[in-house]
């Protein structure tokens, strides 16, 4: 599908950011429930960043007011590209594993906008899609920087203290 108008682009952008924020919040809450607070805090931080991004889209472009029918979004799956699938996390995951998932999610969002920008003819709409791609590229760099600051103590999966006792 090619995006041909501003309202459709804004609806996609708002869905990407708000669904990412919502998923990060869900994952943060799951991690805290499972006592993995380090990863829970990381996901909370990412949720805040995505929610801020969604709010900016809304404030600057009125994006929250344009929504499409579920079948009209151009991703061929149930989930928008910046969402980490539920099955790709687990309760013992390390901060490095969590940020690696976040990096993949940011890259999917950047690629989404780049793909669409490349297919939109020169003009305001293309400029806007390119701007969104640049913002996601910035997020990619941010997560890469976070990853590079992690020391090796953040690499290990946590030990499961709650397994059945051997007989």
């Amino acid at each position: 599908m090619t995006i041909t108008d501003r309202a459709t682009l804004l609806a996609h952008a708002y869905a990407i950011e708000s669904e990412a924020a919502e998923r990060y919040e869900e994952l943060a809450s799951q991690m805290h429930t499972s006592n993995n607070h380090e990863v829970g805090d990381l996901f909370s931080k990412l949720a805040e960043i995505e929610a801020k991004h969604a709010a900016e889209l809304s404030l600057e472009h009125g994006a929250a007011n344009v929504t499409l029918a579920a079948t009209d979004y151009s991703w061929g799956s149930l989930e928008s590209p910046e969402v980490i699938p539920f099955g790709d996390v687990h309760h013992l995951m390390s901060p490095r594993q969590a940020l690696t998932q976040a990096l993949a999610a940011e890259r999917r969002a950047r690629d989404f906008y780049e793909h669409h920008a490349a297919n939109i003819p020169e003009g305001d709409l293309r400029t806007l899609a390119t701007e969104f791609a640049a913002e996601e590229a910035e997020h990619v760099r941010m997560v890469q920087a976070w990853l590079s600051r992690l020391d090796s103590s953040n690499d290990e999966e946590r030990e499961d203290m709650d397994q059945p006792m051997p007989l």
Partner: protein
Amino acid sequence: MSTESACPLTARDYKSELKPVWCPGCGDFSVLMAITKAMADVGRRPEEIAVISGIGCSSRVPAYTNCYGFHGVHGRALPLATGLKLSRPDLLVIAAGGDGDGYSIGGNHFLHACRRNVDLTYIVMDNQVYGMTKGQPSPTTPPEWDSALVPGGTGLRPFHPLVIALAAGANFVARSFSGDPANTAQMIVEAIRHPGFSLLEILSPCVTFRPEERDWAKQVHPAAVDETSDRARAARRVLTDDGFNTGILFRGDRAPYQPSVNLEVVSSVDFETEFQP
């Protein structure tokens, strides 16, 4: 472009305020997402749907939807759902639960639900283990699965739900994978729309007690053959498959069981008087 007002129901409309307490990574999150998406696609309003379950992690599903729900007794989702559908045929009734709930303690009810062929959709989140009670083997656990609770494995031949459902008379039989929520949602829609008893077996990893099931994503694959309406053929296919084929296997044409007699409506007060000393 259509706007939200032209699109009355979305998956969100079927989610309750409760946050699931499943372990992060549990396949049941994606199944829940697929169920709510399927409900939106089917287009029945939440108050026209009832989700009935037994006990287990997966059986918590009714609480996470805002449809009518009943979190029943372990293994008893199907008799509850059957009774409800027979007395309220206007409702869309979905039973949901795990392999322990459905095939172990509820095994007998499973056979007879298939045989009766009441118009129900039964969603089994099969993780081949009892998740809620910390990792005991279930009827679908492979014989060699070695764990602290079953050193050396059970050595027992696993139950084969799809073949048993076919032999017992289920009218729709399919398998999907939680890691593919879009196709799972589509299969739930098909299961709901097909009249009679529909079994959808969803491979849904228990990342806590069967962490190796995280690899299922690499093992599942769409079935290489199309669905059939030939029961014997479907049974032969599924008996020899690797357990990771996904897709609709069988769509039958048995007429659903729905008694034509008008059930007399008894108020709960009348009913309670029967139990007074």
